[in-house]
């Protein structure tokens, strides 16, 4: 290849270019390698017997019938695992109860041992020669339950005399966190010219990546290998080692191939992972478990499920004086640390959002119920907080009869205040929020709304407009990442990273960043992820991968060229300072003496050049955006249609323009899903999950809104990482939900409801909106509020 051709090809694929993703040719031809696509010789199948009770004591578990079924290799109960020394999984640590005691939650046994606490909890595992044999044997297991009283709703769990889930959590209160100064906040509210309050049910959601979880475990020479679908291979290994006796980081390997979507749901160790790993060790056979969708709905972590009463105090000019929030998170029966950290720590960090909020008081309680645990889902705490503050802003604007954009403008943190420390002690490095909003107002034709509303009215439709201006915290507190670069004699630059692809296109972005430095064609660059034998780290969550891992790709690539110049100097018998690198070739300056990058690699010991690089961000990034949504409501049916949605997004420097647009718009559809149709629903009387299939849980379909106007402003780079990039993963989801709901409330307001319209709760289905138009609202707060 000629140097000139190489350079131009690489430049076309460099950062900032709209490129075709490197992941796609395989995926569009069905040549992906998802966990369930791999089958091993002698592979057995595992199937679970799951609790059909919300809360019950296990009186007896009879597996004799199942063991006698044809093809059955082994049957494991919770008792078998306990006897074998398999330990429970990690519990929430570091949290306090309101009485000052440490938070205490039920032990998370991989298979229920004495008590089942949610419908879908694994009770027995059957291993058989085939999927069909395993499933048939599941039906032959007889579990005798003593039913215990169950509570699935927050209000029921907090009611006096409620059934108690765990002795260590009296009143079902698992943990609580309080922030801010109660007296000062009270005084600010007392003196305020304007006070508004809203009650919010941020309903439980199912992440629903299209690929269900899947695990394939096998043992070779005493080493346990787990192939599964996860965003955090190293975290899964850590959990396995802690749970399964005899496992160490040396004799345990986690492999991840293609991941069919994660959205936070595939971030931690699951009970099923432990059981499948144990079954492979116990039977000596490769063992596969493939979740069906029912298992995903009942037993994979859910998102959100936080109920709040939120208040805002403002002076007569519309300046926020204080915010006060009381919230309760329904974290389910068997929560982990993340279940509690999301509502008690991570969400609160962004509660002041982009506004200067002098006083903020929050009390947040994590409550145990007989639901499956909550976990990370698309924003994990940030959507809940931003939804609260954006609803309050609209309530205050309505109360003061101010343009909602104008009220936001009066309260935004100004660029000259950066770096800015918010009321939750979080430091924003950058952000020009008013500039972003003004662009969004122009993109959405904010000032032309009255004419559109009038035109809709003439058609018998109520048109509403909603805005959300906001930021989010990214990075997952894991701000350092290593990347190893191998230049091989075969002609490849290999980038090895512990971050994890899950559909977000991170491999393409890494290739683009490496193209910038190496100047070789993209086909010469390979990204290796998903193998704990190669790389370990936090993994991919919290929109961190580009600004940490991508930073490390950049640093390691630059280092690789620098180190290679020394090797080239030796090979060319010239001092490194006289060596220049361009597009895959080292040259001695001013001569035609040179050597190719890959040829140089071939001359090294092991026929490769190996260089590692580390990037450490000095803080999280704070991506921010303004979303403006318009909806039309049919007053006869309550049906809501999103008819316009514009957003301007500040994600700092953009590496992959096509990918980030896809992230924002795809994320926005998930946010619209929460606003309009999605809701996990448990039956209060029986604790059964009612939304247990895609027939009952309404995922957005293709007939929803697709006409996004999406723009980016790159003029405010992040100051805390080497790339200047801000995480993009959740902006669309976080912004769309409040923008859509504010628009629907605006439409209801226009029908004469005024501030009463603010009592409407998500999801804004036709029934909910139809009832709202008749002033029929559900109450959401627990009676103790």
């Amino acid at each position, binding site marked *: 290849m000629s140097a000139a051709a190489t350079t131009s090809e690489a430049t076309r694929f460099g950062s900032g270019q709209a490129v075709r993703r490197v992941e796609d040719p395989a995926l569009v031809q*069905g040549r992906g390698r*998802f966990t369930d696509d791999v089958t091993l010789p002698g592979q057995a199948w595992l199937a679970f017997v799951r609790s059909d009770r919300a809360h019950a004591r296990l009186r007896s578990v009879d597996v004799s019938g199942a063991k006698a079924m044809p093809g059955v290799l082994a049957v494991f109960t919770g008792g078998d695992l306990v006897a074998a020394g398999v330990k429970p999984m990690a519990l929430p640590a570091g949290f306090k109860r309101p009485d000052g005691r440490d938070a205490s939650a039920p032990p998370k046994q991989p298979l229920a041992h004495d008590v089942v606490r949610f419908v879908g909890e694994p009770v027995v595992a059957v291993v058989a020669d085939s999927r069909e044999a395993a499933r048939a044997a599941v039906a032959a297991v007889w579990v005798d339950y003593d039913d215990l009283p169950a509570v699935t709703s927050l209000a029921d769990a907090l009611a006096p005399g409620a059934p108690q889930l765990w002795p260590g959590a009296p009143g079902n209160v698992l943990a609580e966190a309080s922030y801010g100064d109660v007296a000062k906040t009270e005084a600010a509210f007392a003196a305020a010219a304007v006070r508004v309050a809203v009650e919010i049910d941020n309903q439980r959601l199912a992440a629903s990546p299209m690929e269900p979880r899947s695990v394939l475990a096998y043992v070779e020479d005493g080493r346990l290998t787990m192939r599964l679908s996860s965003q955090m291979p190293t975290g899964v290994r850590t959990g396995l080692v802690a749970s399964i006796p005899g496992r160490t980081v040396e004799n345990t390997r986690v492999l991840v191939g293609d991941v069919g979507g994660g959205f936070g749901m595939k971030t931690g160790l699951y009970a099923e992972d432990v059981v499948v790993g144990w079954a492979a060790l116990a039977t000596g056979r490769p063992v596969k478990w493939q979740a069906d969708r029912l298992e995903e709905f009942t037993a994979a972590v859910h998102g959100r499920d936080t109920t709040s009463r939120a208040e805002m105090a403002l002076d007569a000019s519309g300046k926020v004086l204080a915010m006060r929030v009381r919230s309760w998170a329904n974290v389910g029966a068997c929560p982990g640390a993340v279940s509690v950290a999301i509502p008690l720590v991570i969400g609160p960090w962004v509660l002041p959002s982009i506004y200067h909020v002098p006083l903020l008081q929050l009390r947040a309680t994590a409550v145990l119920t007989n639901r499956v645990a909550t976990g990370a889902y698309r924003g994990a705490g940030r959507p809940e907080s931003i939804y609260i503050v954006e609803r309050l802003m609209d309530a205050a604007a309505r109360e003061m009869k101010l343009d909602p954009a104008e009220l936001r403008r009066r309260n935004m943190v100004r660029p000259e205040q950066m770096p800015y420390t918010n009321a939750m002690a979080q430091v924003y490095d950058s952000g020009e929020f008013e500039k972003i909003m003004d662009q969004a107002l122009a993109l959405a034709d904010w000032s032309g709304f009255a004419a559109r509303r009038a035109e809709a009215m003439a058609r018998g439709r109520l048109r509403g407009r909603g805005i959300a201006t906001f930021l989010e915290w990214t990075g997952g507190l894991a701000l350092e990442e290593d990347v190893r670069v191998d230049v091989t004699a075969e002609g490849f630059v290999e980038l090895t990273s512990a971050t994890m692809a899950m559909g977000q296109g991170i491999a393409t972005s890494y290739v683009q960043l490496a193209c910038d430095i190496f100047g070789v064609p993209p086909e010469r660059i390979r990204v290796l992820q998903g193998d704990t034998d190669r790389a370990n780290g936090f993994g991919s969550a919290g929109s961190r991968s580009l600004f940490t891992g991508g930073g490390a790709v950049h640093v390691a690539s630059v280092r690789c060229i620098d180190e290679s110049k020394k090797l080239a100097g030796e090979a060319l018998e010239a001092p490194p300072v006289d060596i220049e690198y361009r597009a895959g070739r080292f040259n001695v300056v001013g001569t035609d003496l040179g050597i190719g990058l890959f040829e140089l690699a071939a001359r090294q010991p092991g026929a490769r050049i190996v260089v590692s690089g580390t990037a450490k961000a000095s803080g999280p990034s704070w991506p921010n955006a303004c979303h403006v949504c318009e909806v039309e409501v049919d007053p006869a049916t309550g049906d809501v249609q999103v008819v316009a949605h514009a957003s301007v997004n500040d994600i700092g420097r953009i590496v992959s323009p096509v990918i980030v647009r896809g992230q924002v718009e795809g994320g926005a559809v998930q946010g619209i899903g929460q606003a309009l149709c999605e809701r996990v629903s448990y039956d209060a009387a029986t604790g059964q999950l009612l939304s247990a299939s895609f027939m009952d849980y309404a995922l957005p379909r293709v007939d929803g809104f697709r006409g996004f106007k999406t723009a980016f402003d790159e003029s405010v780079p992040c100051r805390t990482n080497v790339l200047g990039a801000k995480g993009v993963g959740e902006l669309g989801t976080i912004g769309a939900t409040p923008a859509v709901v504010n628009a629907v409330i605006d439409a209801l307001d226009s029908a004469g409801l005024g501030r009463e319209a603010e009592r409407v709760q998500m999801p804004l289905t036709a029934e909910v909106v139809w009832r709202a138009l008749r002033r029929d609202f559900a109450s959401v707060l627990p009676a103790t509020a």
Partner: protein
Amino acid sequence: MPMLQFKLNGAPVSADVETPTLLVHLLRDQLGLTGTHIGCDTAQCGCCTVMVDGAAVKSCNQLALQVAGREVTTVEGLAAADGRLHPVQEAFVACHGLQCGYCTPGMVMSAAALLRHNPRPSEGEIVEALEGNLCRCTGYVNIVAAVQQAARALREGAPR
């Protein structure tokens, strides 16, 4: 065990099939064609969509024996023999019509089936044809754009 004979991606296939075997399990487990995915158990998600005699069919919702004597095309059989992508596959790549790629084979097959019998679909007809396919990543924006682009390419004579 009944012997099943049918045409798969252009070639005749014979397989011994247990009567209750679903078409998707025959394809994935017995014939090793893992491009056809399973995303639910209620025939809602469409990840398993294949073409049977040119029509989009959810292969989780058919017994394998139902395709006896018929012609089945999976995502593996869509590209040209020389490896060139089918215009629908090409358009999904060009339009960023996929992120994680798990729903993609089903989406591609539904779209290809649509364009076989309707080379000039309206946006509404595309939406109707993809109503049985769920995608959680893309918000469908670029999927519909990809099908429109593929339709144009096919009309302009791109090899199918």
